[in-house]
């Protein structure tokens, strides 16, 4: 169900600048509730750091935003769209056009070059790829000269840059990053964060991290303890 910014869903008033809004969300695995988010609004363009213990539901929160998971009860509104009410195909389409994912383990495909990995996201969004656009985003993350390299030929830092480029190539409104610096050394992690925050400037960024030193970089932080069911 589309909800205009400043509108309502399930009786909740959505702030006009809200990009992501949770209302009375309970998410459970089997019969066990793991997340309870009565009310959460994340304004457009905010960079939000999410922290909490393992198993506290950080990654699940990201998946609820992307529509890979749907809440057991309640609603999740993203970019004016009640994602939790959409059918699976519509959620997939929504994710392809509005969400960029950055993973801890990069999840790049070995058989493809860096630029091909970036173009994969375009194919699943529009069915077509645009090499020029992919090269442009690789240039923004400082990897234009390694566009033809396979992931195995790149350092872990470079692989994560490719992953960031892939997340940004469709110009999504929201970037979801699941511990993107989790497998990097401190120096590389800091550089990757610089890149991520630079290319995601103006976009809504939700980033899960265990590294509390990173939290200072965000306009807002969420402690998952608040949402433990």
């Amino acid at each position, binding site marked *: 169900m589309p909800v205009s910014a400043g509108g309502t869903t399930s009786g909740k008033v959505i702030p006009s600048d809200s990009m992501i809004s949770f209302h009375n969300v309970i998410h459970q695995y089997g019969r066990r509730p793991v997340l309870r988010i009565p009310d959460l609004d994340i304004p457009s363009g905010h960079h939000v750091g999410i922290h909490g213990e393992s198993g506290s539901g950080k990654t699940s929160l990201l998946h609820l935003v992307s529509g890979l998971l749907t809440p057991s009860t309640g609603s999740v509104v993203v970019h004016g769209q009640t994602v939790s009410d959409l059918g699976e*195909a519509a959620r*997939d389409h929504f994710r392809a056009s509005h969400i960029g994912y950055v993973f801890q383990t990069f*999840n790049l495909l070995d*058989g493809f070059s860096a630029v091909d990995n970036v173009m*994969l*996201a375009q194919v699943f*969004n529009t069915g077509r790829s645009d090499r020029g656009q992919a090269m442009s985003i690789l240039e923004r993350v400082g990897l234009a000269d390694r566009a033809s390299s396979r992931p195995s030929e790149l350092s872990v830092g470079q692989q994560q840059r490719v992953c960031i480029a892939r997340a940004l190539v469709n110009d999504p409104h929201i970037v979801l990053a699941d511990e993107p610096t989790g497998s990097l050394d401190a120096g590389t992690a800091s550089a990757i964060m610089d890149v991520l925050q630079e290319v995601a400037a103006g976009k809504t960024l939700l980033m899960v991290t265990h590294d509390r030193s990173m939290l200072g970089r965000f306009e807002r932080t969420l402690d998952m303890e608040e949402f433990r069911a």
Partner: protein
Amino acid sequence: MTIVSIIRSNMAKRPLSTGLTVLSVALASALILSVNTIQRQTDESYRQTSAGFDLILAAKGSPMQTALNTLYHLETSTGVIPFAVYQAALRDPRVEAAYPFYVGDSYRGLRVVGTVQRYLAQGEPSKDRRFELAAGRLFEGLNEVVLGAEAARRTGHAIGDTLVLSHGLTEPQAGAERLEHDAHPVVVTGVLRPTGTAHDRVLFTDLRTTAGLHEIRPHHDDTHAHEHAPHVPTVSDVDAVALKMKNPQLAMQVAGTLNFPTPENPVLRMNMARDPYFGFKPGVMAVLPAQQIAALMAIVGNAERVLRILSVLVLVVALATVLVALINTMDSRRRDLAVFRALGARRGQLLRIMVGEASVLVLIGSVMGWLACQVLLSLLAPVLLETAGVRIAAFHSIPQDLAIVGGLAAASVLVGLLPGWSAYRSDPIRHLQPS
């Protein structure tokens, strides 16, 4: 970057599995395409060759042997029959055309068939098709031969060449002496165009020439010179007489006279005795070529059926190999598939990737199999022509082959559905977790 690129990358990632799967499909499709092509072309070749005659009169014996000998230049004749049978056929108002045949000699393993010039001028080697000269002219006088296309190719002889024919139909065994008709060399006067039948590997000559080769004449010594009047050999026997009836049903009448027992009823007996062939009844049989070809096809068809069932089974195994290859790789693919989903891939796209991969594997295998089939047919063609008198050709039945390859591609869609469904049902959340 397209879905096809993803499929190509998946295949390139597992070269051994991809290669072996493609190979198994290629072998299976080569087998089924070869069996199908050989069966179709053999059937066509046998049926077309028999189309020119309604009846063959020959010495009593095996009707199949007679059909093979007369139509396909295989086997030996069942014996000889009087030349008078041919003469009776020429007078028979029911007969549209009659051609005598005598086979007893060969040249470098190729049969020499004695007949009448009219056979090459008017006879039909296959349905609605006449002999055509590629070069030269038909034989007219004695000791002249016309070469079938394959015979000319194999011997390398051309118009004007002189040949010495050998007695007998096969090459003598090692150590055995070859009996040459060197007293009667023959001259090549013409070469026929290919007919696509067993006639292509035959040398045709006048019946009187073959009779002359075997005629025993008392001769004087050569110490004195004098002139003989040109001697024309007398034809007394032939191996077979092939008849084209004015109405094909009349062939049954003649067959009835020659093959059925003489009725004891005097009226019926007298009626049968009016048939011009009745006098030859004790030593002559009538063979209906269409019946013999049908019987031959039934025998060959049984073997082909078994082979076809086997090749279909091999194909099913090959398709199962594709299925197993895809299923076996599902575990290693699940993370990739989960990433695709996180990037926005619809379940339907994952299904398309898996089905597409199965189709590409089968399509590449089928095309390779088709090419292998054409190579196999090219290699088998001379052997089949030599041993069975059947001419088969590679790159001949492309539409039928395409239909089979298309059928295989369709089957591959079914094969891809199972792993495709598994990909479709795969839970991305589970496989996106760092291992």
